[in-house]
């Protein structure tokens, strides 16, 4: 299973929502599409799900246009809407039959699926009575019903309370074992938890496409974080003068010392401190930015 997105451009009157966007996803990847509000995530996702038509470019799933591969794609929109007069069971039954699944199979599968997404007790309640979180779960059920190879989710957890979010994230961890997942979100801690690869989009452009480890490596800085006692603050003025120290910044309860070469300079610095009779309460070599900081750096 290979999804190829080639040079997709989409304009809405004056604004170019997606600008020459390309990427590829292979089987069993779990990719997070992240970006600030208005970056073009939803638009791109809708184009992949064949809800919108792109102005330029094409999308191929296993070499074929996505319009003919709709059965291989499961889609969860940002605000799932259903017919409020149908029950959860009827909704899944309706969507399932449209996907070509036989009635017998549906009778077996739907209760299991509803149980899996946590709607087991509400199978025969009308969707009109559902809360936002319940509709989201029904949306996930609907996207999984026909066992697609690729599932695309537009902000799957953004509207949920912490409990709902936790449940859906756990569900996604299970799903990604069998299905390729592409999800868009602006909640980076969630993305960090389940995605291994991140694609960042800003103003319609792709600005980054890397796995988690690549990102963290690239953005690791040669910084030493230390905490010392108040009486030793004077030592810092001496540190500033050192040749290998680029700058000192204060950060929360301590200081970040930017050096040239992390390994050698760390040793030198700690030796210098010990010589000056400084007592370190904390000495951390090399700080890894978390995803949110990297994101802010890239986007702002």
């Amino acid at each position, binding site marked *: 299973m290979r999804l190829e997105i080639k040079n997709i451009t989409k304009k809405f009157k004056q604004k170019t929502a997606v600008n020459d966007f390309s990427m590829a996803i292979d089987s069993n990847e779990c990719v997070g599409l992240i970006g600030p509000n208005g970056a073009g995530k939803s638009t791109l996702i809708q184009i992949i799900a064949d809800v919108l038509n792109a102005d330029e470019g094409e999308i191929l799933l296993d070499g074929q246009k996505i319009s003919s591969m709709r059965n291989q794609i499961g889609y969860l929109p940002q605000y799932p809407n259903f017919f409020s007069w149908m029950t959860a069971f009827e909704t899944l039954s309706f969507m399932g039959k449209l*996907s070509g699944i036989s009635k017998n199979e549906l009778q077996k599968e739907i209760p299991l699926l509803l149980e899996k997404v946590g709607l087991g007790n509400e199978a025969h309640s009308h969707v009109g009575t559902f809360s936002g979180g319940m509709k989201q779960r029904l949306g996930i059920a609907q996207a999984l019903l026909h066992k697609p190879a690729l599932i695309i989710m537009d902000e799957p957890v953004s509207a949920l309370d912490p409990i709902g979010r936790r449940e859906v994230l756990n569900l996604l961890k299970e799903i990604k074992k069998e299905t390729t997942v592409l999800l868009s979100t602006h909640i980076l801690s969630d993305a960090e938890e389940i995605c291994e690869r991140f694609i960042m989009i800003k103003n319609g452009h792709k600005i980054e496409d890397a796995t988690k480890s690549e990102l963290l490596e690239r953005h690791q800085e040669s910084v030493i974080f230390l905490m010392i006692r108040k009486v030793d603050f004077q030592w810092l003025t001496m540190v500033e003068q050192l040749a290998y120290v680029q700058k000192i910044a204060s950060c929360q309860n301590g200081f970040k010392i930017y050096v040239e070469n992390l390994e050698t300079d760390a040793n030198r610095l700690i030796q210098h401190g010990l010589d000056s009779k400084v007592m370190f309460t904390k000495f951390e070599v090399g700080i890894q930015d978390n995803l949110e900081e990297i994101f802010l750096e890239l986007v702002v």
Partner: protein
Amino acid sequence: MSAFIELSKKEVHQMAREFKILWLPIVFILLGLTQPIMMYYLPVILQSAGGVQGILIDPTMAKPVGQEVLASTLNSQFDQLGIIILVVATMSIIQGEKANGMMAFILTRPVSIASYLKSKIIIHYMLAVSCIALGYAVSYGYSAYLFTTVPMTQAFWALVFYCVWLLFIITFVAMMSTFFNSTAFIALISIVSLLICRFIAGLHPLIDIVNPASNSMYATNILMSGDVESWYGLNIVGTLLFVLLMIITMQSFIAKKKF
């Protein structure tokens, strides 16, 4: 095929839950009742209204025949108020699902746009035909009871021609519903267009050939004169071609996702 059946079932369920399947027939039964009763009691009404100066009701005026009554049901009830009610009942069949995202959602499944459109138009057409037929039957019954009986074959053929006009009405409203997003605008443009079609029928033979509303006019003619002229058939073909054209237009509009 199964997608079409499934979508049709859903349309029927939706109509039932919205009670459209209840109120629309009732309205048309009332419309069907109005004309015969009103025409029967009109002299009495005018008289009891005090008899305005200068208007004399000729007591020897012949009572209308059943055919006239039935024809005027088609003309003044169904073709005026009836059209407005049908438009209002049908205006949101596609617009509604555009607005709440359900159409886009349904189309993410491997469903052809053709089956989507066909299921909607066919089911709503069947509802419209049932309602009109009910109202017509009631009108027929009361005309027979209060005036004279209309020969069955004549009444039947008139209804058939009227149903062709109905098909045009439903498809036209569906098309407006596909193009536009405001129900008020859809209703307005549909009602105005359809009434214009109806009023220009009979003005000029050349226009009549292409005007779908001619079918309604022929229905009236059949009732009054009892003949089915051979060229009436031409008009049926013309109207059906129009309907096909509208469906194709709707299909390509949705395919290009201009909604």
